[in-house]
């Protein structure tokens, strides 16, 4: 009898600890709903720029969630499938120059136009810079147009981050139907790109002197990279696999990350993409997910509010509907799954200036949630 009581007692303790673990945040919804929110960037302690895929750039108050103003002068985007206005980041000297950088997909009728598709126009990934003057974008300049023309509006990548030397790292996805091109250096499908803020190519890029290679390429063999963090000039990225094979990588210049020659995955249809999971000359991920969680945004947490989570990577997941917390210990990745019961497709994750965690949910009617201890 006493043994049974003991077991029951420990079961209650176990269940209650699980309960507490699932609800260790205070969750506050910021504002009402947004139209396919994709990314955000804080312009001061309270205000952030929010990009919405249909092509809206808005300044929102974190405190009230209210729209302060909509930014004018955003270029026409192709809002279709996975395409639209994507990442928005501030120049490291934003307080002085008010410059922002943003990525988007748009139709392009110039070089490489595709005509074999009846329903979709030829389009590709663009990155532009502009100055935010008042509520208007001025001096808009396209600094990168991916040589990755596709008709299917899919797999753009589109993340942007800065290295300490001021160069930009951009992720350019494989376009879904063009996955094999990720292995060739004459295009921007499935590549990580490094350019100067004015769009020129840094002279120390790895393929700058190689014939038949585009000089903007920094690394290759990627799929659809939607999480990008740079810390101490180490580039971390996560990318979607198809059915299995989502990856978390450290990106190094000139390296081949294997897609689609190696993969811990099969295609969405169940078809084998490759029988190989490793190959000489191709990098292994730090970790991979099988089954897929569809990793989207990623941030490295400062530890301001959640002290024990300092230097943890947070990855939001779309189909997985979870928040994954990763820690790196001597090259080994440990994962904790958070928000298991949240049941929202998470598009992106950020840290607020005060150290809270901000989540964007996916789709029309997407929401923003602030998590605090």
């Amino acid at each position, binding site marked *: 009898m006493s043994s049974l009581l003991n077991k029951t007692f420990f079961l209650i303790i176990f269940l209650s600890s699980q309960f507490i673990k699932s609800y260790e945040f205070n969750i506050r919804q910021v504002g009402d709903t947004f139209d396919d929110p994709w990314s955000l960037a804080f312009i001061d302690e309270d205000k952030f720029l929010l990009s919405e895929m249909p092509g809206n750039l808005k300044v929102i108050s974190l405190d009230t969630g209210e729209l302060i103003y909509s930014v004018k002068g955003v270029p026409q985007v192709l809002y279709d499938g996975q395409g639209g206005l994507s990442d928005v980041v501030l120049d490291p000297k934003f307080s002085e120059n008010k410059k922002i950088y943003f990525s988007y997909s748009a139709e392009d009728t110039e070089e490489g136009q595709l005509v074999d598709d*009846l329903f979709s126009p030829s389009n590709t990934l663009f990155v532009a810079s502009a100055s935010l003057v008042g509520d208007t974008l001025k001096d808009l300049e396209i600094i990168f147009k991916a040589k990755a023309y596709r008709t299917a509006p899919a797999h753009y990548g589109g993340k942007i981050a800065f290295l300490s030397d001021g160069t930009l790292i951009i992720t350019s996805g494989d376009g879904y139907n063009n996955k094999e091109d990720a*292995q060739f250096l004459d295009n921007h499908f499935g590549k990580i790109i490094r350019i100067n803020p004015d769009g020129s190519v840094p002279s120390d890029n790895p393929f700058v002197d190689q014939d038949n290679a585009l000089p903007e390429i920094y690394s290759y063999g990627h799929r659809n990279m939607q999480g990008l963090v740079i810390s101490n000039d180490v580039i971390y990225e996560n990318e979607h696999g198809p059915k299995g094979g989502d990856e978390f990588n450290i990106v190094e210049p000139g390296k081949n990350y294997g897609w689609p020659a190696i993969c811990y995955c099969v295609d969405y249809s169940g*078809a*084998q993409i490759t*029988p*190989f999971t490793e190959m000489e000359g191709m990098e292994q991920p730090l970790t991979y997910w099988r089954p897929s969680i569809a990793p989207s945004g990623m941030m490295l947490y400062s530890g301001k509010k959640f002290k024990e989570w300092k230097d943890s990577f947070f990855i939001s997941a779309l189909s997985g509907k979870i928040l994954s917390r990763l820690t790196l210990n001597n090259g080994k990745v440990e994962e904790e799954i958070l928000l298991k019961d949240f049941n929202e497709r998470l598009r992106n994750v950020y840290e607020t200036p005060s150290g809270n965690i901000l989540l964007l949910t996916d789709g029309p009617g997407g929401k923003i949630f602030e998590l605090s201890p």
Partner: protein
Amino acid sequence: MRILRFFIYLFCATAFASLLSAPISSFFSLYWIDTYVDSVSVADIVFTLLSDIFNYGPTLFLIYLIGFLPTFIIGTPLLSYFKIRSVIIFGLLGLCSVMVSIFLVQEVIIGTKVISGSRTSFGLALHYLTGFFAGLYFAGTYKNKLSANFIFSSVVVILLFIVAPKMLNIFSQ
């Protein structure tokens, strides 16, 4: 009973087309790897073929069914009414079914080329051809009575498709 028999043979014809189509994907993915990346061994070929038949085959079955069901439900009685008994016509019906299925799924429903191996004109033509052979198969079988042997073989094949993917998954890990 005739209607039941009709549907059983229609499903068999669809399964036949899927079975023929799955290796097309294996061929294209392995050909690309062998040509541009690294040589593939016989074991790689066998594994890929089996994996595609058992894991990808059921997806193809569902996709092809979109075309086969309406085409043969409408086409078969019409052909009987007009007393057209040419098996070639059934083959062409099968071919058109696959064309419509792939078009609907890839261009209208999903918007990307989800059917591996169909991203080239040659690959597409091979898929259409499997539809043609499935039509011939249907023309040759749908008037036959169901035998115990046929039912037994069908059950074995269905069981195989349930068990084999799990076995392959264990093997690949």
